[in-house]
Structure formats: C-alpha cells, structure tokens
C-alpha cells in the first residue's frame, strides 16, 4: 500500500486517484495504470487486458477504468489502433451485464449508454445488425430492472428526536440508501427512452418492409421487450 501511495503522490491526478482508492492493491494498481496512461493512448491500449481481469470481481474499478480509457479513445477514433481498441472495449462492455449493486449500476448504465452513443458514430456498429440486437438485449436488461409505477422513496428529512441522535443517524442512512434506488430507477427510465430511440434508428435503416430484415426487427423487438405499440413504430 505504501508503494501505491508514493506513486499517487507523484501523479498530477492524485486528487482523482485518492477519491477512488480501491481496497485491493492489485485493483488499485490497474486503475492507476489506466490513469497514468492518460497522456499516451498507446499505453492506455496496453492496459486493457489488465482492466478486463477486474471483471467480475471488481465492477466499480472495472467501470471507472473503462471510462478512463473510453474518454481517451473517443477523441481519436480516426486512428486505426484507437478505433480497434474502442471496438474491442465496446464489444467487451456489450457482453457484460449491469452490476447488481444499484450504486455501481448507475455508473455502469450511464457508461454503457455513452459508449453505445459513441459507437453509433462508427460504421462497424451502425451498419451491423448483430450490434443492433446487442443494444436491444441491453434495452431488455434495463427494462427488466425498471419497477413499474415507481415513485421516489427517499427525500428530505426534517426530524427532531431530542436525546436520540443515533436513531436520526439510522433514519438518515436508510433514507440515503433509498435515494440510491430512486436514482437507479431514474437512470433506468432515462436510458430506456434513449435506447428505444436508437432501436428506432436501427429499424429505419433495416426496414421490415424488406423481407430480409423482418427477422432482425422481430429479434430486436423481442430482445428489448418492446410493447405492441412500440413494435408498431419500428
């Protein structure tokens, strides 16, 4: 751990690193490598195999490492090496499911949504039906975790219980946990809207009026758990 602290002290990203220090030294080391590669995309590409090893044991470290790499790659997608690294990262993310922990899930879903949005700039993804099916599967996964008619459970607390600060602390902690669920459900709903619009975009490029596309449209409709009304709009 001392070694890691020394490395952190030497990097300009120290504040960022300290705020996301992971318990396991190896996990910390991998995340650090990605951060330290922020000025050199080739170095970042080299770290990806180590990043992959963080999954599934360290979903938070994995997500934050992928995000760091993604933010570098997305600015240089005309570079063939970077483009391929991005496509590998994209494919890897699409194979993985959302962490069960809702707090980690919020970051994960927003990251995956952003990677998809950027991926759609690339012909390899835009014009590939199987990529559309993968996005539909992600939509289905999102929908499976949406609680219908959900209303926020957390909120502001204005509670006085003189002489019992420990009970108030317990209530506050529970309320903060509920807010995470509220944010998770909000993220799910916002992401669902965006993904459905992306699927509509796919379906307009592969219209079901062409018999060769009919199966594709059915596949994405089923995988995304689209409603009858939504299917009619494809």
């Amino acid at each position, binding site marked *: 751990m001392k070694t890691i602290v020394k490395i952190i002290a030497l990097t300009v990203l120290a504040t960022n690193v300290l705020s996301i220090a992971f318990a396991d030294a190896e996990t910390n080391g991998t995340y650090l490598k990605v951060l330290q590669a922020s000025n050199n995309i080739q170095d970042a590409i080299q770290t990806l195999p180590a990043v992959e090893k963080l999954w599934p044991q360290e979903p938070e470290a994995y997500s934050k490492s992928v995000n760091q790499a993604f933010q570098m790659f*997305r600015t240089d997608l005309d570079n063939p090496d970077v483009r391929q690294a991005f496509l590998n990262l994209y494919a890897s993310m699409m194979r993985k499911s959302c962490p069960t922990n809702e707090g980690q899930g919020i970051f994960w879903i927003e990251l995956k949504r*952003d990677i998809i*949005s*950027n991926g*759609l*700039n690339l012909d390899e993804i835009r014009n590939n039906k199987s990529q559309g099916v993968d996005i539909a599967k992600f939509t289905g996964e999102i929908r499976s975790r949406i609680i219908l008619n959900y209303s*926020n*459970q*957390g*909120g*502001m*607390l*204005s*509670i*006085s*219980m*003189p*002489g*019992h*600060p420990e*009970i*108030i*602390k317990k*209530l*506050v902690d*529970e*309320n*903060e946990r*509920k*807010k995470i669920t*509220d*944010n998770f459900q*909000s993220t799910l709903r*916002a992401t669902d*809207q*965006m993904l459905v*619009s*992306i699927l509509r*975009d796919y379906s*307009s*490029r592969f219209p079901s009026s062409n018999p060769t596309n009919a199966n594709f449209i059915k596949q994405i409709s089923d995988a995304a758990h689209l409603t009858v009304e939504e299917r009619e709009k494809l």
Partner: protein
Amino acid sequence: MALYFGSTLPTNALWSTTAGGLKFASGSTNLFTAPSNAATATITVQVFGKSVSKTFKVVEPSGIDHAVIAATNNILAFPNLTNGQAGAEMLLNIYFAPTEVSFYRVNIMEVGEDGSNITGYFSQWTPQQLHHTSADHWTTLNQANEMNDTCAELDPSPWSSGGFTWDIPSRWQVDGSGATNFLNGWNQVFSIDGSGTVTIVKDNHWVQRTTNGVITTK
C-alpha cells in the same frame, strides 16, 4: 435532457451549445446539461454543413412554490407513532418555483442549524442538541419539480409546554455540476403542550397530534 433525431442520419451530427454542456461533440444522440445559473442556451446541430438551432431559456429555482400534505401517519422514513407517545409526523410534497419549467435533476439541500427560540420543555437541551442533524443531504427534484419532506418529532416524557425553531438556509445545484447556489430559506417550528400534544409547522402547513393519536392538520 436527451437529444436525438426522429429518423436515421446518414452521417455524424456535430453538436455545440452556447451555455451548459453537451456530453458529446458528435453523434446521432446527445445529452444536454443546463448551466448551473440562469442563461440562454442555444444548441446547434450540424449535418452535412446544414445546421439547426434550438434556443432554451434556463431559469433558476426561486424557492418553494407550494407544499401539499401527503400523509400524517405510517410515513416510510419515520417509525410509527403509538398511543402514549408524544410526537407528530407530516409528509409534505414540496413543489419548487417557477413551475412552468422542469428542474429535473436539480438537487435541493436544507442546511442544518442549531435550534433557536428555545422555550420551556425544550430548554432541557442545548441548541446544539436540538441541531437539525437530518439536514445537509441533497435531494433530487423530479420532473414535476417536486420532492418529499418528512417532518417529524418525537419527544420523551415528562412533557410540559415549550417550543423551538429551525431556521433553515437552503441550497440548490444542478446534479453533477458541483456548483452550489443559495436559495431563500424557510423555517420549521416545533411545539408541545403539557399533555404531550405536539405541533409541527412548515411551509404554510401544520400537523398536530395528541398522545392518543388524534391528528389535526391545516
């Protein structure tokens, strides 16, 4: 706010804004985050050299518009009160003004202060012991500019008449922006009488509860 095209694009769209932030510089979809202060933001998207712009007027929250009492017992965030206990609870749905715009993803925070105007029964505690300890946490508004506020009090016996006040400074921020802004504050007043009847006043509403569970509101 999500931005996307209703139909397919044959090429990448290039996005820009005069205020606030866009998640991406290019692509078929985007996410716009309003600036953390009042401003006019013009979002422009360019496709094949042709551009389309849309201007949004961004306004700041000006304070509480109104509040509605949603419940006075069995509130999720507070233990149930039973007969013989001196306490009251009131779940308020608070709406922030102006209501003709959406403050979705705006966070509101009450700042915790010590108790003030302490009289009678409550004088057995110091202002610090009557501190608003459940404050200092952000709560996110929904698309209707609304959030819940659980107002509650539970007082140990023996009872006598008394009261105290929380003066409540408040803050707002755009979720994720980090910038914190001031909002006109409000207060919450607690009181009790010698029979253990408790009254809480907040946001032009009050709830009163006797020790045998009779609840009155306004």
